[in-house]
């Protein structure tokens, strides 16, 4: 093959915790692989599942949604609703033929720069191991 596979990851980060956590990783200069493309959202509860499905349709190898830890949502309960939606979406994606491991939901607080970098690293590694999504993949 020669060229190593570089997964493309779409990441929806909640503004208050995870986006700030990613900033924290930056300010702390904690490096991680460059495969994630970040879309800032106010809350993980803002992430319409269709955006995730659309990302996969376009060809994303992985989708990450990161929000405040349950109980710490800036909007008190947004991530609780998000959690329910994603809990249904993940098995559904698997059912359609998209490995559940390609869709990650993580809780990263504004102070968890290290955790953020670990999440991106481990997700990138995991997706590299899974390999590219077969073309014509469902959705």
């Amino acid at each position, binding site marked *: 093959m020669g060229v190593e596979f570089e997964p493309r990851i779409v990441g929806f980060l909640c503004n208050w915790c995870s986006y700030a956590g990613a900033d924290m990783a930056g300010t702390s200069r904690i490096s991680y692989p460059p495969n994630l493309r970040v879309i800032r959202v106010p809350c993980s509860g803002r992430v319409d*599942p*269709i955006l995730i*499905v*659309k990302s996969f*349709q376009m060809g994303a190898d992985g989708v990450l949604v990161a929000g405040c830890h*349950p*109980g710490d949502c800036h909007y008190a*309960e947004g991530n*609780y*609703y998000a*959690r*329910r*939606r*994603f*809990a*249904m*979406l*993940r*098995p*559904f994606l*698997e*059912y*359609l*033929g*998209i*490995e559940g491991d390609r869709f990650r*939901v*993580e*809780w990263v607080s504004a102070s968890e720069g290290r955790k953020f970098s670990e999440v991106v690293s481990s997700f990138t590694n995991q997706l590299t191991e899974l390999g590219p999504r*077969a073309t*014509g*993949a*469902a*959705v």
Partner: protein
Amino acid sequence: MSQIENVHTKARELLESQAVDCVIGFGKGTTGGSRPLFVYGPEGVEDLIFDETCAHNLAKYLLNRKGKTTAVVLKACDARAVNLLLSEHQIERDKVYMIGVVCPGIKENGEPRDTCLRCGQRTPVSYDYLAGEPEEATVDAELQYKGVAEMEAMSMAERKAFWEAQFDRCIRCYACRQVCPGCYCDECFVERLDPLWVGIRIAPSENEMWNAMRAFHLTGRCIGCDQCERVCPVGIPLSLLNRKLEKEVYETFGYEAGMDPEAAPPFATYKKEESLGFGE
């Protein structure tokens, strides 16, 4: 009196007393089966039939009759659709008169529908008037998620190939959507221009996006009438999608759509302490 005679009597009474403007029920079709029948006056009441060919879910038609008083003949699954529409504030309870019928199990081409084999309900969960004698069917628990379980047992690659082959046939006629009592958007996401979620191509990628999102929009809302699958002109097993989601919803949240119009649907509520497998 037989069930259909009771329906006739009740329909006549409702129309004569002008308690309702219209009774939606089943009439005889031209190809040996039945079809939806709209009766606007007592004189048409005798045309109403009910038998094992009455496959349609008439609850869908209530969406076109907002603000008008309507009586509707409902099988068990159809009554759940009414409950769904009630819980989603699409119809008003006092404008709908629910004539429940005890369902014998619907047959297609003489064979029972798979849906009906899976269904333990013969008597509607809700009704204003029940035309038949209540009864319940016993169902083999294994049938409940038959098909879904087989899908789950497949490998990822097999499942992917399976759905690719299925969606490849889709012609995007939207019959599945049009017949579904849970699909009533003014403008379906698939037809929106901005945001353009799905292009207009009738092609694998678009077909898959369409079918996947349509099913997901029914998460916790599908009442299992499987009309989508019944009307699909190219025979895509759509209920496999919906039933997978209903299985997840039931196993995770213990919720079944349309059973109780007062119960909070899964996406309308949450429990702080619930563990759904995301990092906690």
